[in-house]
């Protein structure tokens, strides 16, 4: 327990013991819960992608907390573009590879990786370095280039996007991880964990023609939410996103943000991003819209956030 947490709970307990009102008692118990349980969001800075991943997972009880023996796991990185890793258009291959290996070591029967890419899918899989990293770690790259790989599901909480065709391997798996990269984005302003969901869906054109931000928020209401959003901020793309033009668009932050909460993860990532490229949070509308749909919270103050510097 951190010193800060100790004081916080001590103060609450102290106040509660003086007033002993029912309301305060409930505050106390909930705070206590927050203090004792695992963090809601973990941020790591200063390491290599694989190291930061392992470190962050440790805070949440390790990979075994999420993946059980014999389970089918899906990992959904951003592999949208035919770009090499140095251009930060796709998720870091080392990060994805390490996650595959961890899942396998936790006893996963199968680890599947896919993305519905924007560029030619084979070239994207290859040139992103992800295919190589995944296969080397014992995972399986699966195509998502054909509508037949997708199945329609209802999104009852969605406002504009009420149903969507989602990749069947994700529908059929036991647990999945959303592993986006933090990028500037010409249309959605920023591409983080919720924007990454466009790659599990077949018809992304619908998003663009029916209010991109609302559709992204709607997609985040999908009932089968990821075990974790693991945001790769090892290299980020600060401008000309989502493709980038050159390495001048790339900034090395050596960071990683991890949370099961879409909204919290994207909020934290935006705050990290804004230090490089100041962005008005209100312009990244889908974050607020998702919060309104009760997908998560933007209020990081109310969460148990664990910050680790390596």
């Amino acid at each position, binding site marked *: 327990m951190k010193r800060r947490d100790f004081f916080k709970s001590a103060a609450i307990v102290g106040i509660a013991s003086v007033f002993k009102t029912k309301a305060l008692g409930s505050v106390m118990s909930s705070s206590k819960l927050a203090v004792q349980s695992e963090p809601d969001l973990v*941020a790591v*800075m*200063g390491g290599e992608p694989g190291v930061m991943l392992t470190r962050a997972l440790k805070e949440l009880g390790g990979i075994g907390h999420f993946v059980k023996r014999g389970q089918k796991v899906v990992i959904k990185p951003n592999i949208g573009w*035919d770009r090499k890793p140095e251009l930060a258009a796709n998720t870091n291959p080392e990060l994805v590879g390490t996650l595959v290996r961890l899942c396998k070591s936790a006893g996963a029967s*199968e680890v599947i990786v896919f993305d519905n890419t*924007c*560029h*030619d899918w*084979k*070239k994207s899989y290859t*040139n992103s370095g992800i295919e190589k990293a995944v296969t080397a770690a014992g995972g*399986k*790259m*699966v*195509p998502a*280039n*054909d509508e*037949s*790989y997708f199945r329609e599901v209802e999104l009852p909480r969605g406002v504009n996007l009420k149903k969507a065709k989602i990749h069947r391997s994700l529908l059929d798996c036991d647990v999945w991880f959303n592993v986006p990269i933090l990028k500037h*984005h*010409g*249309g*959605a*302003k920023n591409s983080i964990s919720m924007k990454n969901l466009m790659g599990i869906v077949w018809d992304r*054109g*619908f998003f*663009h*023609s029916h*209010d*991109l*931000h*609302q559709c992204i928020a709607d997609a985040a209401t999908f009932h089968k939410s990821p075990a974790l959003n693991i945001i790769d901020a090892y290299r980020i793309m*600060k401008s*000309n*996103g*989502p*493709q980038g*033009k*050159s390495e*001048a*668009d790339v*900034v090395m*932050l050596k*960071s990683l943000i991890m949370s099961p909460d879409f909204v919290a993860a994207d*909020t*934290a990532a935006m*705050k*990290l*991003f*804004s*230090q*490089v*490229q100041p962005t*008005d949070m*209100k*312009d990244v*509308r889908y974050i607020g819209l998702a919060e309104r749909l009760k997908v998560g919270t933007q209020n*990081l103050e109310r969460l148990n*956030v664990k910050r680790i*510097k390596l």
Partner: protein
Amino acid sequence: MKFLKKIRIVLAVLFFLPILLFFIDFTGKLPTQIHSFISLQLVPALLSLNLLVINIGVILALLFGRIYCSIICPLGVFQDIVSWKSRLFRKKSKKYRFDYSKPQNTLRYLILAITIIVFILGSSALVLLLDPYSIFGRIITQLFRPLIIWGNDGLAVALNRMGNYSLYKVEQISFVPLAFGVSLLFFILVTAMSWFWGRLYCNTICPVGTILGFISKISIFHISIEESTCNRCGACEKHCKSKCIDSDAKKVDDSRCVSCYNCISTCKKGGIKYDIRYKNRKIQPVQSEIDNGRRTFLLASGAALTSIAFANTKKIISNNDSILARKPIMPPGANNIDHFNAHCTGCQLCVSKCPMQVLKPAALQYGLTGITQPHLTFSTHVFCTYDCNICTTVCPTGALRKLPMEEKKLTQIGVAKFRRNKCVVFTEEKDCGACSEHCPTQAVHMIPYKNGLTIPEVTENLCIGCGGCESICPVRPYQAIYVEGNSNQIKAKKPSEAKKFEKKIDDFGF
């Protein structure tokens, strides 16, 4: 001498298979270097002025006769396969059924003359239709490849259901009825002719065959019948798919002989020789088979037909499937439309190699004379990949100049045109930006609009016309942003780089 046929068959397979597989390969797994087999084809070599290959072709023909037709030409080998397989459907007594026929010289020379004249007058229409390599390319790409991909897709679906993803489905979007029709027509023509009459196509219609026929008349090695050992059994004549052996007269028509050496292998008496023409013998003057009357007729009709063909070469701009009556978008490296139209033979190699299938055979976009020449058509997720120059590297005819990657990235094949009043940011007042998202040069970029919204803007001199924007624009059926083809491909401005971020961040910011 019987080993000659075996050598011929082995070599033919060695040349035929790589070309066949290269055309069929839809996974892009085969190395692009295989296209060097294709650069040995004579018409592409003539069009790209590949002097080395032309010289090799001429020297080979001067030495050995038309072995090009039996080994290097894929359409020739294809016909041999058809002719060979046709035997399975014949009665035993009729398996070898050829007999000598007179050459159709008038027709042969007429077709060659018209092809050349029309080409000199600036239209490659007939070269495109008659080049044997291109006919083969079209037959494979338009007729056979789709079948193989269907087979692959069926297998892929079955395997994927079982959780095996070693095969994947390939969407086929390159069906163009007119191009398919032209390919089918020639497939039927060539197949039927070879099924019934052996190499009649090569010896009547094919202009390359006719030219090589001129050379093979004086080739150093040639097939001839040994007076002393021949007993006029006629076996060689029956086996001669070129129908050029007259066993009664003991004569061989060298201009039609494709040096397949079947006759040598057939003759039990050793009565067929393949040896030096000019040995111990005074050189016999080559008989001219063309008399003056024929020549006149030839020229006259040539000129007449030429003018008809020439009149038809006017470009027709179709506006059926386009947003506006836009000009066709040529592949990168085409330079300008006249060069491209004159050099492209519509062989479909670039079409079959294009990983995005954005290259499709044209219907009438280039006019009647450009059917099956490639052009770009964009559809969802289908546009010209920024980091790809494969079409320019495989083109055997020089219609597409080989572009180094950096040059390709700056080659403007068209320009994006933005129609603001159709854009969803304007009509719905909602963010989109899909076009800018797909723009590799950021020629299409987002500028402030209102209420925190951003709207696209095009900087035309940065645009290379890849069609990323048009392919993804959600406004359908007529996109709010589309690419207008360039008749003259020019160099785009190099996109400027973003300002580098130098400061060190060592705080999370939250």
